[in-house]
């Protein structure tokens, strides 16, 4: 059964499928299908017809029209023309429209179109992924696997290039930037090829510089210039629908100026004056640069900032894969060439379908997502226990990956077990103890506060479902407490064809960015969870209450535990609190500190 690649994009949607060894992209008159749905007059219209009703840039609800309902997933029902509309249903309309379009083509009529690999934005969290899966299901398609859009584009580029395996070897360990500048959003993803796996390093995205914003800026400037030329004040109204036509003319002008030096924007009639005057403005490429140059600069700045944040220079990027309609603008292409050098910028010829094509190749190759970085549990005294190792395959449709652990609470005195799930910044299963960890989630579990340390058994289960959401559940077996937390932003790697996929015994992979253990201002939770019964993990003051003999000199207790114990004891001489600056008695002991680092009391 053929699995189709489905790019449900912010601006446009389309499907692709690999037949034989070539990809077929289902374009409608050489264009993708706009991700727009309209509910005008109670009539549901999808795609190009709905898009023609748009009057301004921006995503979401515009009157009776919804642009990119994907962005509404996870929100409450929207009231459109007095009718409450479920975002999932809106998404379903578009998905179903694309599906029907594919099935009515001659090349697609033999497809069942009931299983897809769906692309998602990098920042789409787990709950929205679940809703998107539901929408696909309602439209008669089951999602075999989600794959992030930039990863899909990169995979498709590698797969469709000549000498794929050589190319992958060439890029091994190198940084690759996927640059998707479409009508609605600019998405940036920094990836690295590690042992044949495409690993995401960093992501960024904005809706502020989408192509539609360009069109809108252009339209406003054109109208301003027209009014100035014709001496019309702002009081002169514009005919109904004229502004919408001007917007489309501006979009065309933007495109025309890619291969022409000048273009006349002409809308007739435009103004609602006595003569019903038309609008005609001659735009040059320089004009366009003046009008939207700041937007291009803004977009390119995002690239520079992303690289800077991660400590990379533009020179360290081996390939900049540019997709999306906006990269065809000469000024964008020129700017990218300036940044990375012409040899390292690759503008996809099939920029509109690069993501869908990549998803189709992922589906064809049955390429699986892998966990890019370990998922660890922080233990008492700041050690880390791996819960899920980097490299493990992520579940696909109807699969779950579940692990269960038996743990102890080293300090139950406050009645809470404190769980902190973290992920190291360094990809791969081998990490250093002092690598920076990113907190994934924290949980507080009720435990028996009267119990001795390590007495009550607690369990932790981590489960990753088909929507790539990690759910951590902890139980205290005696106190009957439970705590649940979800992690929606796990980081994944995509296996390329022929990938060795052997992260089981890898060398230490390069870390990306800063590897300092923590940053200034970080607030971290002190975990009191232990994987084994070790009294050295118990805070000194707690252990003293349960086992004072532990601190006898002949037992040679660790210094840290002795200090912890003493910190909460009043000074034996002056009876002041241990942190009282007026207490100088501690200096008496300094001379008695032994070279072994242990204190003798």
């Amino acid at each position, binding site marked *: 059964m053929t699995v189709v690649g489905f790019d449900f994009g912010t601006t446009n949607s389309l499907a692709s499928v690999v037949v*034989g060894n070539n990809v077929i992209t289902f374009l409608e*008159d050489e*264009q993708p299908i706009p991700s727009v749905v309209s509910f005008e007059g109670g009539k549901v219209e999808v795609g190009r017809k709905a898009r023609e009703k748009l009057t301004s840039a921006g995503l979401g609800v515009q009157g009776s029209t919804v642009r990119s309902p994907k962005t509404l997933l996870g929100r409450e029902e929207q009231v459109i023309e007095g009718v409450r509309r479920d975002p999932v249903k809106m998404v379903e309309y578009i998905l179903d429209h694309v599906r029907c379009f594919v099935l009515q*083509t001659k*090349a697609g009529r*033999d497809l069942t179109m009931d299983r897809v690999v769906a692309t998602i934005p990098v920042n789409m969290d787990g709950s929205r992924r679940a809703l998107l899966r539901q929408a696909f299901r309602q439209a008669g398609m089951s999602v075999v696997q989600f794959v992030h859009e930039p990863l899909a584009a990169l995979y498709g580029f590698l797969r469709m290039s000549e000498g794929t395996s050589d190319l992958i070897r060439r890029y091994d360990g190198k940084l690759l930037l996927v640059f998707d500048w479409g009508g609605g959003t600019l998405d940036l993803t920094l990836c690295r090829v590690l042992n044949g796996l495409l690993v995401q390093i960093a992501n960024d995205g904005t809706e502020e510089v989408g192509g539609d914003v360009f069109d809108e800026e252009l339209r406003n400037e054109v109208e301003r210039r027209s009014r100035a030329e014709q001496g019309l004040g702002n009081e002169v109204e514009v005919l109904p629908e004229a502004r919408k036509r001007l917007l489309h003319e501006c979009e065309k002008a933007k495109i025309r100026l890619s291969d022409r030096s000048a*273009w*006349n924007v*002409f809308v007739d009639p435009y103004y609602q004056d006595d003569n019903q005057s038309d609008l*005609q403005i001659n735009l040059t490429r320089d004009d366009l640069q003046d009008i939207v140059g700041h937007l291009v600069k803004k977009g390119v700045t995002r690239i520079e900032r992303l690289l800077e944040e991660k400590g990379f220079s533009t020179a360290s990027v081996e390939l900049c894969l540019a997709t999306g309609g906006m990269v065809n603008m000469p000024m964008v292409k020129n700017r990218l060439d300036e940044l990375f050098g012409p040899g390292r910028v690759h503008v996809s010829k099939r920029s509109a379908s690069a993501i869908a094509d990549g998803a189709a190749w992922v589906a064809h190759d049955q390429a699986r997502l892998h966990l890019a970085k370990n998922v660890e549990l922080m233990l008492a005294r700041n050690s880390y226990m791996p819960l899920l190792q980097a490299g493990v395959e992520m579940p696909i449709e109807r699969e779950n990956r579940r692990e269960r652990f038996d743990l102890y609470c080293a300090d139950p005195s406050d009645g809470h077990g404190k769980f902190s799930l973290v992920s190291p910044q360094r990809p791969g299963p081998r990490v250093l103890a002092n690598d920076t960890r990113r907190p994934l989630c924290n949980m507080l579990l009720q435990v028996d506060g009267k119990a001795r340390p390590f007495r009550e058994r607690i369990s932790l289960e981590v489960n990753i479902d088909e929507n790539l959401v990690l759910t951590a559940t902890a139980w205290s077996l005696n106190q009957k407490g439970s705590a649940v937390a979800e992690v929606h932003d796990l980081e994944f790697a995509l296996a390329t064809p022929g990938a060795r996929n052997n992260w089981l015994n890898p060398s230490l992979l390069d870390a990306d960015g800063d590897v300092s253990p923590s940053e200034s201002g970080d607030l971290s939770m002190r975990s009191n969870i232990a994987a084994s019964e070790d009294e050295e993990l118990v805070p000194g003051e707690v252990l003293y209450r349960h086992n004072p003999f532990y601190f006898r000199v002949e037992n040679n207790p660790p210094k840290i535990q002795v200090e912890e114990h003493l910190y909460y004891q009043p000074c034996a001489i002056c009876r002041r609190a241990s942190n009282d600056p007026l207490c100088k008695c501690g200096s008496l002991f300094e001379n008695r500190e032994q070279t072994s680092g242990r204190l003798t009391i």
Partner: protein
Amino acid sequence: MTTSGTPSNTPPISAEALTSATPSNEVLETEAERVAPGSEPIRSESSVEGTAEALKRDRAGKRAKSEPETLAQVFEYAYRRKGQPLTLKPKAEKQVALNVQLDELELSHILQLSKSDKLLAVPRQILLLSQQVRAFPSLRAALTSFVLNVMLTHPVFGDAGVQGALRNLPEGLQPADALARVANFEPSPNTEMGLMKGSDLRDLQCNAVNLFVAWLAVNRGLSSEELSALLFQVIWQPAVSDLADDNLRLAALTDLTQVAGVGLACHRFRQQAIEARAQQDQTQREATNLRDRLAAAEAQLSNSEEQLAAVELELEALQVSSAAEVEELRRQHAVDRTHLQHQLEQLRGRLVKRLTDSIEMLNVGLSALCKDTPRVPVMMERAEHVIDALRAEVQELREE
């Protein structure tokens, strides 16, 4: 191992030789009497009494020195010999053949003589004599007819099945059965014959069997092998069962006097054994040959089956590979078809888009021209754009 000739090559054996080769002691005793001519036979008939008997003795004594001249004299001579072999000189044969009729007195006398031969020792000799008479069929027929009459009237042959066998009637018993019945003859207890001594009865049975065998040899043309087989089956083999120990067997083997018959029978059996052995050897050779051929055929069959299996496997593999090739070709065809259809649709979509754009451009340009103040540049650049686009399209179509 030597092989003898086929049975057809065996020399002819007289019925006398076989029927006199009785292995039993009683028969041997009789033969002992026979080889002592002139002595009183132990098993001869002793029931002839009175003057008639004396007269006969006189006659017999008188005629014993002269050759018989009539048939009655021949019979007298025969019965006087009491079962010993008979011979007739050719002159006597000729003389007797001139008068083969018996008058009443002679007939009565002969019948009386025949009845006196209770052990049936004489008729066989008469029958054998008849076979010596070759030049006078009438004499021969008279002798044979007499023997038949004697047999038919004797109680030993009184059984209907036996009589049928004698006369070669369809309802008669098979020779072996008839012989067995004769050999196992038991007289009625109340009759004169029933009072016979056991040895006499055995003699009678033996003589009757010999007579019957001789009769069958003469009238049915049984071969010597068949006669030997019949005798072995009916007389000789049952007699062996009486030899309970080695001593008796030694006595039986060393008491043989009429060795010619034994030798003949043994010669026949040996001949048969040799022939059977030869036949067996031949059969074994044929069997070995057939087994070899069978083994060769089986090997060939096995080889053929292996070849067949190999060919079938090859065929199957070919079928699988050809099916896979066909499937692959079909799949490739479907893929090509799909791609061609897609390319066609793409081409159509591209043309539609380009033409639609062009129409829209020209439409806008035309409306610009139609203004009170014609916007010529608008029309011109749109016309240029349309021309460029169409040229590009034409170029692209040519390249495709």
